[in-house]
């Protein structure tokens, strides 16, 4: 269970944005996104979330679909 980072994904945004699911899986350097139930979705790999390097590649790919939260700032 992640203790320091939470990654929120808006499945609706990912689904309606062509190629976004594939892009998220590809760009994350620590493999936080895995393939979802279908080609237009992703799953958050909980075991990798605390490895998040805060590189913002995912949030830049989809400012509306992905949110990264630093739990230690809450």
């Amino acid at each position, binding site marked *: 269970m992640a*203790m*320091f980072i939470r990654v929120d994904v808006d499945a609706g945004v990912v689904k309606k944005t062509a190629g976004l699911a594939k892009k998220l899986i590809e760009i994350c350097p*620590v493999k936080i996104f895995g393939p979802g139930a279908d080609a237009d979705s992703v799953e958050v790999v909980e075991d990798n979330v*605390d*490895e998040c*390097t*805060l590189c913002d590649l995912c949030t830049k790919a989809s400012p509306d679909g992905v949110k990264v939260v*630093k739990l*230690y*700032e809450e």
Partner: protein
Amino acid sequence: MRFYESEAKQLLEKHGIGVPPRVVAKTPSEAEKAASELGGSVVLKAQVLFPGSDKAATTKTADNPAGAKAAAEELLGRKFGGHAARAVLVEKKLASAKVFCVRATYDGIAKKPALIASDLGGTDLDDLADEQPDHVKRRHLSALLPPSTYRSKELAKDLGLTGSALNRMTGVVHRLAGILLDYDLTVVEVNSLAMTEDGKLIALDCHMDMEIEGRARQGKILAELGVDESEARLPREPTEFDLAGAKIDHDDPRGVAGPIVEFGGNIGLVIGAGGGSLTTFDAVKKRGGDPANYAAIGGNPSVKKCQALTKLVLGKEGVEKIAVISNVVSNTRADLLARGVIKGVIELGLEPSEVITIFRAPGAWEADAFKILKKYGVEFCDRSVSISEAAKRAVEKIGR
């Protein structure tokens, strides 16, 4: 990584440095046969890498083959510093007119290769430097350029040699410098470099250590010398703790967590960064602490790697608290280290504020690290607190 004397001499011979006629014998009968072939008196040396205080007992002389067999039986039948001899090096005993000592190594303070020599060979060079410093001569080599012959000649001249003796010594010193640099050695030393009656220089002994990191680059010569890849050649066999540390490093290629080495103390150390681990280890000792382990983390290890290392160290018997101390980090993220250490502590069911005595990993992403540490009530500090001071605080919390 240490070489047996028989291997070291093989390397010297390969590079044109004189060594006595010799045979490696694995049994007393082989030693007897070798002595017979070599003729005359022989010297028998037990091939042990780390004989410790038994070093003097590793050498015997024999005047005939029967004596060599008896000596070999004795050398092969006992242990030296807890280690059995792999074989016995049987050498022809040579007469010498004078004995010198030459060492090629690195000067950690000057940060350059160094050549050190004495005209009083056969005695420990370090002791000699303390007791008779006038008889110990030094020259540094360039850290960038190939070793220059004139430096070797200067050193040889300082030993009081002239003429052909000077030229011969220059050649030996220069070759030793080349061997040091070409084979990633940390030291090559001939403690007894004998000058025979006819002026030849013969290495009667040889001590040689290779950088562990050099092994990957030196596969060719290691194979030539018959050094197996599985041979660690370290002063002691790796413990279960050491092996578990190596597995953590191996299993996750991100960053470095190693070498991890077990010690007998009570202060768990998660330390590293650009020499910071050695500095911290020494600082803890200097402050009266007793480290439970050595560690060297760096190169931006993953959270999981830091977590696993923390669990290993804290899980060691007798360790109740840890100190997380590093040099200023630039290529390692302090926040990822903080995450990993805290996760490891919590997974063991412990309280970070109680078991992490101090967290000093200033540098990249330290602001985020400090937020994490503050949230979990862990004492932390920035670069304004020295490694020495951080070690002192850790020792005070843990107790000597």
